């Protein structure tokens, strides 16, 4: 009877407070108190640790409250925020030892450097390949200025997203993501719009991945074929001579140039391997071969297997940085500054096509849909803003480095800067061994990220429509076929990743980067009556810039 009500986590009543305690007494007390544990039997680093008074009274309370309701009644179930922290919970075994509960996955705490690295890794996407083209479209000086200013703007909006869940009173928002915050402030339209625009960014990324994977697989296959059959493709494309060839795949597509340029035939006139050319074409056949590889991977039920390969992305980016530095050494700098007019080989420093760069950068700096989740595991939460800023600065520096270097070393006397391709690896022939390695690394990395993205899309869409993540094999198959078809069609008919990235970036950036964080912030200030004119005008200006960014993609 006595043991019925004794709380499981009770303070240590034996020991120090009673000076004389005979051995028989302590034995007696042990037999009568099966859940009392001698301090030396508590298994953890500090053996003198006792259960805290708060945990002990909470246990007593919970014991009592559980008697007052039926077991299925949820009225007196303790909410999460009153349960003691994992550090204070002991699990008792009937044999008399007690183990401390170490924090589970939910409370994993990473030091700042890991968090910064995780954010850098998440933001570094395939947009890095389009930054040199973007700088070319905006002009060199203007491009650098735009990268810095768009980086700062997106950083501010990301800071707003991060802080958005903190100003909600009375509700425990510790496991909310940004679309929950939108739902709280804006109701169902807010939640749906944030989900839909997030979908756009994911599906846009998947389409870009398909185009790039077709590209890399094609080039890899061509390299291997040419290497095996000892074919040299040196004269097939227009480009520089020498060991470090840089080519211009589409020399005729320069709308502003007045000069004419002889179009070189892109197809090989040799009769050596027409069959291979037929079977292995970048736009006609390779995108379809990819279906065999990737569609089965998309149908996996869980994507946790692919999550292990995130290190491949880091390796690929590091290798790209190394490759760009190597090419810079080999090719040397070719820069000339013409401020407002075109020349034969160079582009102006300030161009009207700059919205294309801002569109690309909106997707390049995009992490707003998952920044809250990423920063949750930061050890020192008070440093969140500092760590986010450091991560953004690192990302910006990486993009600037790659973009500026590729633009600057592009050999301009024989080739025009206009030749820089939206995927700058296209400017190197398939016989270049360094670039071949880069293409292979990126191909493997993308084949592991593609199913992850597909899983995210599936979870969100299926979760919203059907309420569960895997409603049925055919539902998921249908969704995957739709996504793959979009990728294949884009790879077949319009494989210009620069355009895909800028449209997708401007569209989803409009909602998730510019409009929703600013609107949510203004509403939260307005609700507590602290919305002042400078703040309102600044955030309205941000929203207007978001719309201008989107419109600029269509008109420029």
């Amino acid at each position, binding site marked *: 009877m006595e043991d019925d009500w004794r*709380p499981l986590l009770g303070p240590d009543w034996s020991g120090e407070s009673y000076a004389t305690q005979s051995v028989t007494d302590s034995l007696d007390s042990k037999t009568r108190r099966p859940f009392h544990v001698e301090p030396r039997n508590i298994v953890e680093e500090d053996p003198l640790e006792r259960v805290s008074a708060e945990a002990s*009274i909470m246990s*007593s*309370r919970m014991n009592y409250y559980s008697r007052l*309701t*039926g077991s299925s009644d949820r009225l*007196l179930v303790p909410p999460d925020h009153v349960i003691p922290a994992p550090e204070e919970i002991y699990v008792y075994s009937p044999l008399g030892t007690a183990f401390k509960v170490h924090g589970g996955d939910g409370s994993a705490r990473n030091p700042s450097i890991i968090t910064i690295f995780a954010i850098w890794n998440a933001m570094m996407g395939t947009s890095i390949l389009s930054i040199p083209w973007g700088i070319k479209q905006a002009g060199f000086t203007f491009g650098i200025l735009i990268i810095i200013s768009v980086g700062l703007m997106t950083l501010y909006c990301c800071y707003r997203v991060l802080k958005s869940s903190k100003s909600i009173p*009375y509700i425990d928002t510790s496991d909310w993501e940004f679309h929950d915050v939108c739902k709280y402030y804006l109701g169902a339209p807010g939640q749906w719009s944030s989900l839909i625009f997030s979908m756009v960014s994911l599906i846009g990324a998947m389409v870009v991945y398909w185009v790039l994977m077709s590209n890399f697989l094609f080039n890899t296959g061509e390299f291997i074929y040419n290497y095996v059959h000892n074919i040299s493709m040196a004269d097939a494309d227009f480009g520089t001579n020498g060991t470090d060839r840089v080519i211009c795949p589409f020399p005729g597509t320069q709308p502003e140039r007045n000069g004419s340029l002889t179009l070189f035939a892109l197809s090989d006139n040799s009769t050596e391997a027409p069959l291979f050319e037929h079977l292995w074409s970048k736009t006609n056949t390779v995108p379809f071969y990819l279906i065999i590889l990737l569609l089965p991977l998309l149908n996996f039920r869980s994507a946790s297997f692919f999550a292990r390969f995130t290190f491949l992305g880091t390796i690929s980016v590091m290798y790209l940085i190394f490759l760009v530095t190597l090419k810079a050494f080999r090719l040397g700098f070719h820069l000339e500054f013409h401020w407002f007019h075109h020349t034969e080989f160079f582009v102006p420093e300030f161009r009207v096509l700059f919205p294309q760069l801002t569109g690309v950068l909106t997707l390049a700096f995009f992490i707003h849909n998952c920044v809250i989740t990423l920063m949750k595991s930061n050890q020192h939460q008070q440093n969140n803003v500092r760590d986010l800023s450091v991560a953004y600065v690192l990302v910006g520096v990486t993009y600037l480095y790659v973009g500026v270097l590729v633009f600057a070393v592009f050999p301009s006397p024989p080739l025009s800067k206009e030749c820089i391709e939206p995927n700058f690896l296209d400017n190197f022939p398939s016989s270049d061994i360094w670039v071949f390695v880069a293409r292979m690394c990126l191909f493997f990395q993308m084949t592991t990220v593609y199913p992850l993205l597909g899983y995210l899309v599936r979870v969100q869409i299926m979760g919203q429509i059907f309420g569960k993540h895997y409603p049925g094999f055919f539902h998921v198959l249908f969704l995957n076929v739709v996504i793959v078809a979009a990728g294949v069609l884009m790879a077949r008919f319009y494989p210009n990743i620069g355009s895909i990235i800028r449209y997708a970036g401007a569209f989803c950036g409009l909602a998730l980067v510019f409009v929703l964080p600013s609107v949510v912030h203004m509403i939260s200030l307005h609700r507590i009556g602290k919305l002042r004119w400078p703040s309102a005008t600044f955030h309205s200006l941000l929203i207007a810039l978001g719309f201008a960014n989107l419109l600029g993609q269509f008109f420029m």
Partner: protein
Amino acid sequence: MSSTAMKKKVLLMGKSGSGKTSMRSIIFANYIARDTRRLGATIDVEHSHVRFLGNLVLNLWDCGGQDTFMENYFTSQRDNIFRNVEVLIYVFDVESRELEKDMHYYQSCLEAILQNSPDAKVFCLVHKMDLVQEDQRDLIFKEREEDLRRLSRPLACTCFRTSIWDETLYKAWSSIVYQLIPNVQQLESNLRNFAQIIEADEVLLFERATFLVISHYQCKEQRDAHRFEKISNIIKQFKLSCSKLAASFQSMEVRNSNFAAFIDVFTSNTYVMVIMSDPSIPSAATLINIRNARKHFEKLERVDGPKHSLHMRMR
């Protein structure tokens, strides 16, 4: 004029969902019956006859969500509800989004109280404080307290902040009980004398129905600040188990080589708990002491005359 007492009421009022039923269940160790979980708007008022402090009766009144029923309370059933009220305990939900409506209901209650039972004591509980972030709790409670004090004039209200998940609920109700016992200081000084005479380590006085601590005397510092609430919970759990066997709890003795503790009926409103750290004193001696003290304390409860006593009065 009847010779029996008119039952004095303790009204526990508040908006639907503010936590009154849980609170009452926890303080009075009632099982929460499943059928009190409403599936729709409250259309009836719950009368629970829990005896409290002798002959007070707790009435739980639920201000149901719909305004039509509230208006009904304050018009046609007004006299019925608000007459003979000794204590009004009004519960506010701290995360309520309709502050003006809450204050409007509260003020209607106060008007009715002023008209029908102007001597009633008013207590306001700001409940569910665990949902507020820790660093904001004092601030929010002070704001509410000022508003409520202002709105309650000319009546004086005592405000507490409470949550069922920490010790504030127990402390608030203990304070309420303390203020309702008429001659509590005298009781405390007599308790001190009693404890010193019988050489007890600690003596506690509990209210009979709820085991809320009314007063206590301790001769040295004790380690566990939560012990009052723990004892209360333990005994209430025991009472619940006893009631399943259709038995009622009367007294208890707990003894081991280090101490002896006695819990026994004391006066008509109270239980006493005596803790002796000298186990060589036989139980019989302590029990005789308690029995003799009982007579003295019961006289104390009657001594200050009918105007302060909570006992039955002739009217």
